């Protein structure tokens, strides 16, 4: 690294910085971008509309009943919490391990984390029978309940993630404030407020770097906690499929996998719609993320084997019933598709160098994400269905989400994507100063010249 830095002389470096700034400033959306925003808004508003109906009529509009009392709201919550873990993986774990290629990926992974954790919090309120009493958790909160643990760690993680997104963003916001031309007044005001008077001073950078280090150390245990505690919501009960001591590690490993899939998909789409990003999100980045995905998928496979095969060896009463439904019964097609397309196929494809090129990587990442969503469905729902129960209407024995339920869930997914989309529209999604450091530009030059506009 030291040699690298010296190799770049000052004029070269300044030119490079100017080029970065030019390439990475947020740009107005084209037609596709606008259509994408319109579509997301429509889906989101439909979800909001259906939620208002749910508020008025009650949870009866869902497919849930006394028998299967948790549905896709909960599995979607688990999905959101899972995908949000990637923020800590890329920004904190890779940062502390001094993995230099992570620089252009940090902000993308952090905004995915922030968007997902916000909507995780919202969707869990959607699932509540009495959202009007959410304040009871504070007034009458019982520390013995895993739900209270979850509320505590999820909100802590949300705050840490937002800070970890925000602090490294300060130079970027102030650059937008000073150099974005022809923007509406409110946008300028927003930059002014959010930049907190950033002056691009070396001391400020030092503070930000210190803050990032502290936050990175703090966020790792909290990230492990959010998903472990989320798994305990299930593992603390007696139900087959949930009553497992393997659940925490199993959930966390799956979470890192889906989150990394999310980052890869985001990288591909950014490049696809803004070719100037190709210089920063290079094929090498895809190659490295591909290797990371393989590692994570193998770890996940290990915990999955623990989770399913050991109970299947014993075939204990209710557990056997549950496993039969997953392996050969009603849920078998979904179960095996998810295992194959969401875990085994990505491992095979990404082991080859040709498989780690951007397009095949994108396909694998989408498979990982979609399968991860359905995997959460398979973790949550079958544990409640198919138990031998009597005295309930036939229709209660099988859960299938209603259209309203899909609309609300879809609305939450669209909402999270909207947060990410708007962020990309208004803020630099790749951190210029971190990328410049990665490329070997000395910090002195960055502090001195980063903030210069490219006067043309």
């Amino acid at each position, binding site marked *: 690294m030291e040699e690298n830095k010296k190799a770049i002389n000052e004029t070269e470096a300044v030119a490079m910085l100017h080029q970065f700034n030019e390439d990475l400033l947020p740009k107005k959306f084209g037609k596709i971008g606008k259509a994408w925003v319109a579509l997301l808004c429509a889906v989101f508003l439909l979800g909001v509309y259906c939620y208002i109906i749910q508020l008025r*009529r009650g949870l009866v509009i869902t497919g849930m009943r*006394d028998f299967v*009392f948790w549905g896709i709201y909960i599995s979607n919550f688990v999905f959101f919490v899972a995908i949000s873990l990637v923020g800590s993986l890329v920004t904190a774990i890779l940062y502390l391990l001094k993995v230099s290629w992570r620089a252009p990926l940090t902000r993308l992974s952090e905004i995915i984390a922030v968007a997902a954790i916000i909507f995780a919090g919202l969707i869990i309120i959607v699932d509540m*029978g009495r959202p009007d*009493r959410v304040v*009871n958790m504070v007034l009458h909160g019982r520390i013995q309940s895993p739900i209270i643990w979850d509320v505590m760690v999820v909100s802590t993680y949300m705050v840490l993630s937002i800070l970890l997104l925000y602090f490294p963003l300060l130079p970027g916001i102030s650059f937008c404030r000073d150099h974005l031309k022809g923007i509406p007044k409110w946008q300028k005001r927003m930059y002014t407020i959010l930049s907190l008077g950033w002056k691009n001073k070396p001391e400020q950078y030092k503070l930000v770097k210190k803050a990032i280090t502290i936050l990175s150390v703090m966020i790792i245990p909290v990230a492990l906690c959010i998903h472990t505690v989320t798994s305990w919501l299930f593992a603390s009960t007696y139900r087959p499929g949930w009553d497992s001591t393997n659940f925490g590690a199993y959930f966390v490993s799956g979470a890192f996998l889906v989150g990394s899939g999310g980052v890869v998909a985001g990288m591909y789409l950014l490049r696809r719609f803004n070719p100037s990003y190709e210089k920063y999100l290079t094929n090498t980045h895809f190659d490295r993320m591909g290797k990371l995905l393989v590692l994570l998928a193998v770890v996940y496979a290990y915990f999955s084997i623990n989770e399913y095969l050991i109970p299947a060896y014993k075939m204990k009463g209710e557990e056997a019933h549950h496993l039969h439904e997953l392996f050969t019964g009603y849920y078998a097609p979904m179960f095996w598709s998810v295992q194959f397309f969401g875990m085994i196929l990505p491992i095979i494809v990404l082991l080859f160098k040709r498989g780690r090129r951007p397009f095949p990587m994108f396909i694998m990442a989408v498979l990982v994400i979609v399968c991860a969503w359905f995997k959460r469905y398979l973790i949550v729902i079958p544990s409640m269905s198919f138990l031998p129960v*009597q*005295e309930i209407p036939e229709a209660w024995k099988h859960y299938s989400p209603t259209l309203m339920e899909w609309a609300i869930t879809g609305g939450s997914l669209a909402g999270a994507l909207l947060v990410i989309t708007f962020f990309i529209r208004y803020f630099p999604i790749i951190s210029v100063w971190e990328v410049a450091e990665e490329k070997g530009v000395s910090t002195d030059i960055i502090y001195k010249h980063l903030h210069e506009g490219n006067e043309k």
Partner: protein
Amino acid sequence: MEEELNKPGIKTNRKDFLKKGLFAGSVLATGAVGISSLTSCSNNSGKKIKVLTADGKLVEVDSNVIIEAHPCCAAPAKESRKGIPGKKFVMVIDLSRCKHALKCQDACQRYHHLSGMNVWLKVFKMHDAETMAPYWMPKPCLHCDKPPCVKVCPVSATYKRDDGIVLVDNDRCIGCRFCMAACPYSTRSFNWEEPQYLSETKGAVYSPELGFPQKKGTVEKCDFCPDMLRQGKLPHCVTACPNGVFYMGDLNEDSVSNGAETVRFSQLMKDKGGYRLNEILGTEPSVYYLPPVNRLFPFKDVEITKENTEETK
């Protein structure tokens, strides 16, 4: 009126019966009767009833305007968390006497004004293996001494009292349904929509000991009828059962009663080999079962679905 009260088994219009029953009950038990908005009364039954007002006047009003102000002796929410001093309630269910008459369930549904789908007391057909003989098993809430539902509740809406009863406060419940996930006996139900029989319970003051009026978006379950226990009476399922299947009593006094006979709890356990459900889970239920030996009735199979249990009502 007295006559009507004394034959609850008669198939009368359920709603009608309830109103009269409630009214008569309140006059006899507490004498506290409230008269709801006399002016807004739209359908006169034409039947006049004499009631005693709070200030001691005897007035005559139409029977349709009468609702119960203090339906029974249920304690208010805060007090209901303590339990009845010195008691430790236990129930014993004698499986050798159950013939699936469902009178217990009927009474439970009626007195708690339960909506059709929410059933607190279920009667299951137990037939675990082909080689075993089938039998009927009533299953209320087991009021565990180590209740998993109470452990997981984030707001203490469900709680364990000193007298062994586990209750739900539907004024506090946030509807997360974690207790339903935690209960290994699946005894809890949820009000997915606005409760059906709200009109019947209109004006009644809610108490966790009463279990009604139900509220949308909250969890409910069998409560051991603490309002009856407070009056020294037996729960509705116990008195409704024609075969004396249910015994209710106090562990501290070592006595349980099914209405017809009062016996020593420990002796009953000893003589008939009492046991509890799923002891392996460590939940320590307050409900004991006596094994289905020397049965009073031959097992007569009925296809039990929710649909035909509804019909029997």
